[in-house]
C-alpha cells in the first residue's frame, strides 16, 4: 500500500485490523463480517506498527508469554526458538523499556512469528530496522506467504516493497487511485506513482 503522508494508509490498516468501526460499508474476512463481538476472527489478524504494542515494564520473555497465552491459549509456546530467530535470545529477561526501538521492532516480529496470524498488517516496518533486521523481516514475510498467509505493507520504501509484493495499491486523500497486480514492465504503475516520487528519484 503506497501513498503520500496523510493519504489514509494507517487508517485503512486500523480498519482492516478491526480497531476502528467503519461508519459506512462493512469489512469481511473470509466472508465473515467484522462485528465487535466476534473475537474468533481476531486470532487470525496481526498488526505490526511503529507503536510496538508491548508492555514496557514486562521482560521480553514475559511479553511473548503473555501474548501467546492470550492468542494461542497454550502454555508451551515456542518462545526461545522465536527469540533466537530474531537474535534476542540473549536479552530474554531484559525489560522492554531498556530495548532500543530497533530491538523492539525485532521483538514485535518475534511476537507475530510466534502467533502466526493468517493476515499480517504492517505499518511502515522498515523505519527502525538495520540491515540484518530488514533481511530478517523479509524472510519472515516470505515465510508467512509460503505458509498461505496474506501480508499487507504500508510503506514509503517503494523499491523494497515492490520487489517483495505481487500487488500494489496507491492511496491518495482517502481514495484508492490505483490497484493492479505486478507485472514486468509496469508502465501504468510508473505513471500512477510518478507524481509521488521525490524529484531526482527514477
Amino acid at each position, binding site marked *: 500500500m503506497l501513498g503520500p503522508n496523510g493519504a489514509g494508509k494507517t487508517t485503512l490498516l486500523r480498519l482492516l485490523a478491526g480497531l476502528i468501526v467503519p461508519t459506512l460499508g462493512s469489512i469481511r474476512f473470509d466472508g465473515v463480517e467484522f462485528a465487535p463481538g466476534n473475537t474468533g476472527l481476531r486470532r487470525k489478524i496481526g498488526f505490526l506498527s511503529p507503536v510496538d504494542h508491548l508492555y514496557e*515494564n514486562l521482560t521480553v520473555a514475559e511479553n511473548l508469554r503473555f501474548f501467546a497465552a492470550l492468542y494461542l491459549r497454550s502454555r508451551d509456546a515456542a518462545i526461545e526458538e522465536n527469540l533466537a530467530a530474531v537474535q534476542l535470545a540473549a536479552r530474554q529477561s531484559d525489560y522492554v523499556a531498556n530495548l532500543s526501538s530497533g530491538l523492539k521492532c525485532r521483538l514485535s516480529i518475534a511476537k507475530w512469528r510466534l502467533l502466526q496470524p493468517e493476515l499480517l498488517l504492517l505499518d511502515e516496518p522498515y523505519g527502525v530496522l538495520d540491515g540484518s533486521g530488514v533481511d530478517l523481516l523479509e524472510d519472515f514475510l516470505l515465510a508467512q506467504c509460503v505458509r498461505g498467509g496474506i501480508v499487507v505493507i504500508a510503506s514509503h520504501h517503494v523499491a523494497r516493497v515492490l520487489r517483495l509484493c505481487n500487488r500494489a495499491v496507491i492511496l491518495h486523500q482517502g481514495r484508492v487511485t490505483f490497484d493492479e497486480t505486478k507485472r514486468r514492465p509496469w508502465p501504468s504503475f510508473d505513471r500512477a506513482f510518478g507524481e509521488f516520487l521525490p524529484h531526482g528519484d527514477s
Partner: protein
Amino acid sequence: MTLLKETYLLLWKDLLLELRRRESLLTMFFFGTLLLFVFHFSFDLAPDKVAEMAPGLLWLAFLFTGTLGLAQLFNAERENHCLDALLLSPLDRGALFLAKTAFNLILMLLVEIVVIPLFWILFNLNSWNLLPQIFLVSLLGTVGFCSLGTMMAAVTLRARARELLLPLVLFPLMIPVILATIRCMENILRMGEFGEALPWLRLLLGFDVIFLTLGVLLFDHVIES
C-alpha cells in the same frame, strides 16, 4: 470457562506490573492514612460521637482512595498503545473488565485491611470483635465501587480532564452503595449485628450483582477504540 482464564491472565499481568512499578498501592495506602488524620483534625470527635461518625469517615476515605486507583487503572495500557494490543487480540472484553475490577478491588482491600484497624486505634474504638462484619460490609461496598468505577474509568478514558470527570460521573451513581455501607456499619457498631440494616445489605448485594453483569455485557462498547 475461557472468560475466567483470560481474566486471570490479565490480572496476573496487572499485578506483576504493579509489583514492578509500585505506582498505585503505596500511593493509595498513604493517601488513605493521610485522610484519617485530616478527618481527625477537621472533626472534633467526642469519643461517643466517633462510633456514629466512624462509618462515614471510613467510607469517605475509601471512596477517594479508590478514585485515585481508578484514575490510574488503564495507565499500563497507555504506553505503546497496549490497549490497542488487547483490542486486537481475541480477548473477551468482559474479561478485561473483570480483570481491571479485580485489580482495583485487590488494591483497595489491601488498603482497607490496614486502614480499618488503624482507624480503630487512632479513634480508640473498643469494638474489636465487630471487625469481621465491618470487613464483610466494606468488601461488598468495595466490589460495588470497583465494578461501577471501572466502567466509568473506561467511559471517561478518552475524555479531556478525565481525572475530574471520573468522580463527577461516578459519585452520583455510587449513592446507593455509600448509603448502604454506612447504614450497615452503623448498625453493626451500635447493635453488634445487622438487625435493621438487612434490607441495606440486600440492596448492596443487588447493586454488586447488577453492575458486575452489566459491566461484562457493556464493556465491549465502552472500550472499543
